[in-house]
C-alpha cells in the first residue's frame, strides 16, 4: 500500500563550514491514511523542519519525500505547488487566516487558486465548515470569530476537498487545555475519515491523542510508541492495586 507520506533518510543541513547546523538527520517516517501521528520533541529538535519538508515548503538536503507515492524531487516546481494545494493541508499555531476574507473565503482560497470555480469552491468550503461545526459562521470575518472558531476554520481549510495529508504545527496554539483537546478531537476525527495526519507538539497530552507518537531528539527519530492496548488494561491495573 502506498503511504500518504513517506520520508526516507531525510536530512536537512543549514549553512556550511563551522556554522553548519544539522536540523534533521536521516529521518525515516511513513504515515498511512487514517492514521494520526504526533511528533514530539523539545525546542530545536527539528520538529518544525520535519513538517515543512513533509509539506514541501522546504527541500531536504538529502533523502526522499513521497506524498501519495510521488517523489517530490522528481516533479517540476509548478507540479509541486499544485500538489501542495491539492493534497496537503496545513494548520498553523497562529491560525494564519486572512483578515480581509470571510471564513468560507479563507477555506476556499486554495481551491480557487487552483482554478476551481467560485460556486463549486463555495460548496466544498461549506461542506468542510459543516464537518467542523462552524457552517453558521461561514460569512463572518476572522475578527468576528472566537479563538476556537478560528481554529476550526483553519482545520476546515486544511481538509477541504479531500486533501489526503494534514500537517499541523502546535495546532492548539494558545488555547486552554479543554479547547486544545477539542482541536485534537477534530484532527483525530479528520484522520478517521481517511486523512493522514501529522501533528508536531511538545505537549504530551496533545500527543496522546495520536495513534503513534514519534520522538525526535537533535534531528533524529530516537523512539516511537507501540500501539497502545485497549482502555480495559487500565481497569485491570487499577484492580490489582
Amino acid at each position: 500500500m502506498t503511504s500518504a507520506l513517506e520520508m526516507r533518510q531525510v536530512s536537512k543541513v543549514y549553512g556550511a563550514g563551522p556554522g553548519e547546523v544539522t536540523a534533521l538527520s536521516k529521518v525515516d517516517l511513513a504515515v498511512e491514511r487514517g492514521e494520526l501521528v504526533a511528533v514530539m520533541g523539545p525546542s530545536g529538535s527539528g520538529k518544525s523542519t520535519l513538517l515543512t519538508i513533509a509539506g514541501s515548503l522546504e527541500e531536504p538536503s538529502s533523502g526522499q519525500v513521497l506524498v501519495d507515492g510521488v517523489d517530490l524531487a522528481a516533479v517540476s516546481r509548478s507540479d509541486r505547488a499544485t500538489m501542495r494545494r491539492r493534497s496537503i493541508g496545513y494548520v498553523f499555531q497562529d491560525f494564519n487566516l486572512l483578515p480581509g476574507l470571510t471564513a468560507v473565503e479563507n477555506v476556499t482560497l486554495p481551491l480557487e487558486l487552483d482554478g476551481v470555480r467560485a460556486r463549486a469552491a463555495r460548496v466544498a468550503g461549506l461542506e468542510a465548515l459543516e464537518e467542523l461545526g462552524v457552517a453558521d459562521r461561514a460569512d463572518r470575518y476572522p475578527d468576528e470569530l472566537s479563538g476556537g472558531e478560528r481554529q476550526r476554520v483553519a482545520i476546515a481549510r486544511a481538509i477541504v476537498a479531500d486533501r489526503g495529508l494534514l500537517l499541523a504545527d502546535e495546532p492548539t496554539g494558545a488555547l486552554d487545555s479543554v479547547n486544545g483537546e477539542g482541536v485534537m478531537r477534530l484532527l483525530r476525527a479528520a484522520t478517521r475519515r481517511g486523512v493522514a495526519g501529522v501533528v508536531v507538539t511538545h505537549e504530551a497530552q496533545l500527543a496522546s491523542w495520536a495513534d503513534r507518537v514519534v520522538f525526535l531528539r537533535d534531528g533524529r527519530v530516537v523512539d516511537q510508541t507501540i500501539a497502545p492496548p485497549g482502555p480495559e488494561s487500565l481497569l485491570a491495573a487499577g484492580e490489582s492495586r
Partner: protein
Amino acid sequence: MSVPHALLALLSEEPKHGLRLQSEFESRTGDVWPLNVGQVYTTLQRLERDGLVETDGDGDRSRKRYRITSDGGRELADWLRTPPDLVPPPRDELVIKVLVALEVPGTDVHEVIQIHRRHAVEVMQRYTQVKAAAAEDDVSLALVVDAELFRLEAIVRWLDAADVRLKRQPPTRPPAGSEPSPQPTPAEEVTQ
C-alpha cells in the same frame, strides 16, 4: 479515593440501598474505580458505628436503606474542604532511577529517560482512548481521566527538563579506575 466520603456524598442526595450505592459509585467515577459490594457494606457498617449514617431497621443488609446523619453531613463538608496531602513521597522511584543511571558506568541516562518518557506517553494514550470513546458530555469520566493525564504529563515534563539539564551539564562521574570519593554521591545517599 476515600470510599467512605464518596458514599456519604451519594447518601447526601437521598437514602439509598447498598447495591444502588455500589452502582452509582462506579458510574459517577467514570467506571474507572471498580468497587465490590462487600467493600460497600463493610464501609457502611463503619459509618453506622461512627454515627455518620443510620438505617431503617434490622434484617438482611441488602434490604436496609441507609441515610446520612447530621454528623455525617458535617464530616462530608469538612472532608470536601480539607486539602489532600500534596507532599510527594520523599523517594520517588523514577527520580531515584534517573539519579542511579548517572552513576552506573556504561549507562546512557538519556536512553533511560526516553524509555520512561515513552512508557508514560503510552499510558497517556490509553487514558486518552478512554476519553475519546466516551460521550463528550460525560463530565465525571473526563474529570477522572484528566486528573491521571495531568499527573502523567507532569512526569513527562520532569523527564524533559531532566534531559535538557543533563545535556547542559558536563559529566561529573570520575573516570573508571580513579580513587573512589570518600563522600557518598547523592545517588548513593538516596539508595542506601
